[in-house]
């Protein structure tokens, strides 16, 4: 059983109320939340210091315009926050940020992380092309209430088993909560969270986070994941399959731009170092008589896969932005799962746990006799 805070408003309103309270009390300097853009046609992350600005906020909107992990990394790369900041973000974004912090790309200091049990998000294209997300919201929350997988959410989200946040100070319960239009339950996971809500109107109680509904939902997601694996059929790929799948790539490198784990400012694949020299074209042409230009498309994706696999949090941003619909995230999902299992590692779970590639096991250090 864990401590919870109960409010008598819808989940979205309750979160806004909470943020308003924190801002007005001066407990936080600002909040980072999703907000509708001016024309109401899209959402974007915004930094807010004025509670009035929360009017157009939609903290739990099922869209991920950019991975908050990268945003938070940029905020704290040079130095940690001077004053507390509340952030409403999805579980994968939080795991992504913790992973980045482990790689020295930010700091966790002074953050108040508010996350929710995630029902998944819609593809970005939906909001860009037809702006139809607003219309879909009722059926989305209806599915969440019934602990079903909402129709039309991204394949990556359908297959995601880590929809319960790790490392959040507060967790908004959604999955299987029948009264979420009128009531809200917020889990207070840390002492810090207790301190922040002190004096706020509402009820303190004790409840269990991982309900039966959540357990069942996990099974559904797992089944979806296996279905996805079957569809992609990575095992049968081989080199030709890979070339075929990534052959569509136009080399925009959007996937690496949006990937929270691809934290390098200038990717080596975009630097001069890997640029082929004229003589190399010459040599390859002599050998093969025909080569694709620019070369090394598959090399780029495999390189990224190797570097990202251990830390990939499965946020799906890469698939979301791909202009030619390569299921990048689905392929990465399968590979990262086996790599992470191999090292018994869950990225973004524990800020104190070292990334496996940076530590030596004692038995690895034993020198050979003679």
């Amino acid at each position, binding site marked *: 059983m864990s401590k919870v805070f109960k409010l008598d408003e819808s989940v979205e309103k309750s979160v806004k109320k909470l943020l308003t309270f924190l801002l007005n009390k001066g407990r936080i300097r600002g909040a980072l939340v999703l907000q509708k853009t001016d024309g109401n046609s899209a959402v974007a992350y915004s930094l807010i210091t004025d509670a009035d600005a929360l009017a157009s906020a939609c903290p739990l909107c099922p869209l991920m315009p950019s991975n908050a992990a990268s945003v938070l990394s940029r905020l704290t790369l040079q130095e940690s926050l001077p004053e507390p900041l509340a952030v409403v973000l999805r579980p994968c974004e939080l795991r992504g940020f913790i992973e980045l912090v482990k*790689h020295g*790309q930010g700091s966790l200091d002074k953050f108040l992380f508010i996350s929710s049990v995630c029902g998944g998000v819609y593809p970005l294209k939906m909001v860009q092309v037809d702006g139809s997300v607003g219309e879909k919201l009722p059926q989305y929350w209806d599915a969440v209430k019934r602990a079903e997988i909402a129709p039309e959410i991204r394949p990556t989200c359908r297959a995601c088993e880590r929809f319960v946040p790790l490392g959040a100070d507060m967790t908004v319960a959604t999955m299987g909560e029948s009264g979420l239009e009128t009531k809200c339950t917020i889990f207070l996971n840390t002492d810090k969270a207790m301190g922040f809500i002190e004096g706020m109107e509402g009820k303190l109680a004790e409840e269990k986070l991982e309900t039966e509904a959540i357990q069942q939902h996990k099974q559904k997601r797992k089944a979806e994941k296996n279905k996805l694996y079957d569809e992609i059929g990575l095992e049968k790929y081989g080199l030709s399959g890979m070339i075929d799948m990534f052959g569509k790539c136009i080399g925009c490198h959007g996937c690496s731009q949006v990937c929270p784990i691809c*934290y390098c*400012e*200038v990717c080596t694949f975009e630097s001069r170092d*890997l640029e082929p020299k004229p*003589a*190399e074209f010459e040599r390859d042409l002599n050998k093969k008589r025909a080569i694709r230009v620019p070369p090394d498309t598959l090399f780029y994706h495999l390189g990224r896969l190797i570097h990202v696999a251990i830390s990939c949090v499965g946020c799906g941003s890469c698939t979301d932005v791909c202009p030619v619909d390569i299921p990048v995230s689905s392929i990465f999902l399968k590979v990262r799962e086996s790599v992470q299992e191999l090292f018994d590692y869950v990225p973004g779970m524990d800020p104190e746990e070292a990334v496996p590639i*940076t530590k030596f096991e004692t038995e690895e250090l034993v020198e050979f006799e003679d």
Partner: protein
Amino acid sequence: MAKESTVLIYGTNLGGYRAAYAFCKKGYKVILLNRGRYVDEMKNQALAQLPLDFCWICGHMPQRLFKAIGCVTDCYNAELLEVSGEAGHFKVKYRTKAQLVNNFACAECDQCIEVCPVRVGDRKAIFVHPEAAWENIYLIDWEQCTRCGKCEEICPTGALKLERSEEVQEMDVGVIILAPEFDEPIEADLEEFGLGKTPHVMKNSTIARKSLLTNFVRDSVTLPSGKVPQSFGIVITPHFNKSGIEYENYNLSVSAAHRAVKLKEILPEAQVTIFLRDYRGFGKKHYLWYKKAQDAGVQLVKTHKLKMTPQGEENVAIEYEENGRGGTQRVELAILITGQKSPALMEPLSRICGVKADDRGFCQIRPFSSCETDVDGIFAVGEFSGPKGNPETIWEGCAALTEALKYLGEPNFQRAAPPPLKDMAGERPRVGVFICSCFGTFNKRMDLEVLRETTEGLPGVSHTEIIRACCTPATIKETAERIKKSGVNRVVLAVCTPLQKLLKYRKTVMMAGLNPLLTEYVRLREDVIYVHKDRDKMLTKALALIRVGIERVRRGAQASPPTDAFTPHALVIGGGLSGLVAADGIASNGFTVTLVEQKDTLGGHIEYLWPAQKDYVWSLISKVESNSNVIVYKNAVLKETAGYAGNFKATVSTPDGDVSVDTGVVILATGAREYRPDGFLYGKDPRIITQLELKERLPQLLKAERGPRAVAMVQCVGSKDARHPYCSRICCDQALENAIKLRQKNSDVTIFYRDMTSYGQENLYKKAGKLGVKFVRFEDHHYPEVRKSGKTLEVVTANGNKQEADLVVLSTGIVPDIANNEDLSFLLGYPLDADGFFDSDANAYPYEEAIKRLTKPYEWATNCIYPVGLAHSPRGFDACILTARDAAGRALTILGKKRMPPPNAMYVADVKESLCMGCGVCVDVCAYSARHIDPSKKVAVVHPFLCDSCGSCVAICPNDASYLTDFKSNQPIGALDVLLGT
């Protein structure tokens, strides 16, 4: 009158080589007298005995390469004739005759062999020494040679001269170092064992040499009949030989165990027995070989008597006596592990220089010195001054520097500055391929002109040329000029092999103004000409290798070796014997020292020493304390350290507050302590004491009318067991000394022992036996029990024999102060070995680990941190002093340098800042703490002085920002591409 500065070294043992190296580094000219016709014709200890089947030649290669710099004058066929004068002003007269083929000028083109008209079996009258593997040594069979002179005519470098005249030289030198080589027992010395009479008896070194050259271990033990023996007896001979013929140095027990284990490896069914008197594993890790042999199923027979009789053509019978019971074993091959004879040169050298021999015929060293003889200014190093371990023979080289500097004048050698290098950054690569013809010999094997023409058209190549050579002074200069003239900025040299001649090739390109990182050396001889017969294949392979070279240099980038100032100061931690000796060695040679002692007095465990030793330590304390170069902090400990070799910053906490010490080197002399036994009723009865307690009580006991009636001593208490799997080296000596003193007072002394491992004190063992000290051996872990019945003490052996005793003395070993050592290990980043002593790697067990550290100068090998004395390993008084003087010597060779390049020069990792995100994974994986993240720039920074070029950072960096200067990732990829593409 100014003191002379030149040093004369007579002999070529490893100590002599090391001394030559140290003096050269320090800036003194050295004359090296080699009695042989070529390098190592007179074999040093390691080469003669080949312990662990390892010749160790690569281990002292750096000191040989040092000759090339020009401060060593090598004299071959040399003999010392006269010495006169005194320390600092010796006049020496010696005879020398140049080598038939001057090693350093010879290009190894083999033309002399080709033109020689005289065939002798499968070789010519001029031939290459078949057993000296690392450099080709040309010899002439004078009996067959017709003096036709064709070889001299054809020699392209003039290295070969048939007539060499003998010269007699007179020189003024400051000090003389005697380093004569190892005297192996000859056949006549081993006739007791049937050597030479039957093929069933062989010397271990013969087997080792055979397998060393051929790598066919099985062949090396095969009998002339072609049969592979199935039963082996390995005999450690010195103790079973007639007295005075040979002495045991410290390789033998380990050699025997090693040989046995190797035999078991290739012939698992064979019966292998080691016959020995005591297992004497003296060094670090040596005792582990005993366990290894047992685990491998080798039988060990410890006996006091042994007789070997050949049994016709079949086998050899070995008779022995074990635990009072006799036995005989027939073996098909008996392998003799032989010892060392006292040096034959002792007599002539004492006549010429006045040095004296000790009672066994080895050169006598004055008390409390590590290598100075009875004559001022004349030193003896290595196996010449007594049987010892290989590490000790080498340590004496640097110890000689510490002790001899006071007799020498100002340094008289300055190394020439390296040629200036041109800045080629930003230039488009223009590769020049220079193909060595080895004075026209390669032309005969393959078509170099075709190779050159094919190379000409390759991308990036702007110049190709066939050169004569680049390995003799003239051709190095000539090739350098050609490179300059061609205007290229990258060079591929297709040559014989950089394995031997790397420095020469590097010199060639540097003389042409090129950074060595912009050059590649392709092995045209070793990888092509020597291994292929088919001319087309040769051409294909040569071309492929050259193309690899081209691709690598095209992607190479220049870098210069960073240098850093070197702090001319030493920090000595620990003010016991070893710390004092080290501090004195450095301070009295003109450098400042900070000595940190955690107690309030200097001297360490002074209470345990003999009176003369005490006096020595007292004198050392007053010498150190009165030396203005030394600052002593008592009641002080090391609190923090930062920095790296050459520039450590230490914080010492003293009673008057923290003191900051900037130092170039750190000497760890933290000592160790006596093992306190549990069991044996120790602490339960005042009559049960340790050897050290006895030593303290001894003056009183000896003053009494008569000593205790019966004394029982138990050896190896807390030693050679699972917790302390090593021999402490000193307990047997202590027991013997105490036993002799008590016996002289008519006490009955019985020593219960596993192995008597008296370290270099064989005569003590004999003396004790003669005086009537009783020795009772017990099996490895069957220790006798100490019982108390009523008032009497009893020692009961495993088989039930009882012995009453008035005094029971437990011989306990040395154990490291683990907590303290661990603290220091953490502070200094210096690892401990499995036993808890400081792991000094290359120095502790050179034959096993030397290769790892081969390419680094010795004084850098442990990053300017030198553990000495008991912090290093358990050892006795003199041996502690030796390690301290060795460390002081190594420190002295570099302390005076103004600036130093890092140990790996420019061959280190670097970071491309534009690609680095400062994520720090490379910092996590760096095992050498050589990296950190620059907090303001957020990029990784490499410290070249700490980097060991391992490449972990390169492998881990997700963005290719980290690279090795000589191995950028696109270099090998480019090389692989061309190999796979052709």
